[in-house]
């Protein structure tokens, strides 16, 4: 049993190492925005659109997304009196698209991320039904990483418990961590 659990802990840890590291490293800009700026490079462009096939925002987006540089997921679709606005996002870039009804081109503002910005995008993109095969696969990987975190924790606690010499110190730490965090969780929830 001990050997099995130890192997499961190692198998999960080795497979999901980079995924877990991603969440740790990409959290740094959230906690310390000035340390590693993830300021994007902003560019603007006009992209040709066939007005005859631009009856709705998705139709316009699909025309634009056929170009490789504008591939990604369609998000934040809005209609207004003049036309449509939407975003096409992927890990490394976000395109803000403005299309005026009847026009032969759409205005696209592109924010290209640096490496930290890309990691941050990977951190925040989740969901198994995003309408894009690549990001749906990523969504499943996020779900699996989350499940792996549970299992890594559970198997880790088991492995610690089997180390008799570490039981006392470990018990103090797990009780300390649990009481501290659960107290705050309940207290903040109730406030």
């Amino acid at each position, binding site marked *: 049993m001990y050997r099995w659990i130890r192997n499961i802990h190692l198998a999960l*840890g080795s497979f999901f190492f980079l995924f877990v590291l991603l969440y740790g490293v990409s959290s740094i800009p959230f*906690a310390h925005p000035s340390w590693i700026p993830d300021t994007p490079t902003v560019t603007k462009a006009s992209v040709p659109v066939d007005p005859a096939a631009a009856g709705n925002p998705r139709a316009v987006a699909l025309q634009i997304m056929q170009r490789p540089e504008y591939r990604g997921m369609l998000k934040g679709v809005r209609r207004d009196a003049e036309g449509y606005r939407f975003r096409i996002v992927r890990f490394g870039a976000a395109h803000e698209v403005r299309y005026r009804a009847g026009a032969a081109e759409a205005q696209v503002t592109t924010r290209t991320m640096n490496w930290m910005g890309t990691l941050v995008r*990977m951190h925040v993109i989740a969901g198994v039904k995003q309408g894009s095969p690549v990001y749906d696969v990523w969504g499943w990987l*996020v779900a699996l990483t989350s499940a792996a975190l549970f299992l*890594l924790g559970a198997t*880790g606690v088991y492995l610690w418990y089997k180390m008799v010499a570490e039981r006392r110190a470990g018990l103090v730490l797990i009780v300390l961590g649990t009481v501290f965090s659960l107290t705050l969780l309940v207290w903040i929830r109730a406030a």
Partner: protein
Amino acid sequence: MATKWIKRLHIYVGLLNSTILAVFAVVGLAASFLPHTPPDARTPDEVRYVPFEAPGDLDDLELARLVYEAAALPLTRPPAKFNLRRGEDGLLQVRLPTPSKLHVVTVLEPGNRLRIETRAFDMWHYLARLHTITPARPLPDWRLRAWAWYIEFALWSLIFMGATGVWLWLASRPGLGWARISFAAGAAVFALMLVLGR
């Protein structure tokens, strides 16, 4: 000797972080499978009224700051411009979110009072909001500050546990074939997603 201490620290840090790791896991699973419902779409859990006389010589943001003080809602922060809205009736609304609730305070200027609508986030969204709290922004309440420092500790712990985990594997069982394959497969999938998604 170093490996023995690294193993000990790996275990201790893991035990201290067991709850927050579970929170991160729940947040990841919720973000993967649950739809996001805007809290405004629901009926308020609570509506109450507080007497309030709006001075006539303030702009919206100044008035919102005064409303914030008068409402005295726990865990809220002073409002910024993006917290202000005008409802369909033209009345000023001040949105004061906390990790667990969204308070929408409407200034009823003709009636000299505030209407405070409160909607509680469900448990999943509560945890999701909680996991984003860091010391990067000023927090008005010591409970939130304590939680923010816990998150700070957790993020460094996550990096530390990943790095020491690899160390312990390489120090104790470097020749284990399936572990190498598992590591290589994970790295390959990650790299592939990075290339395809970027």
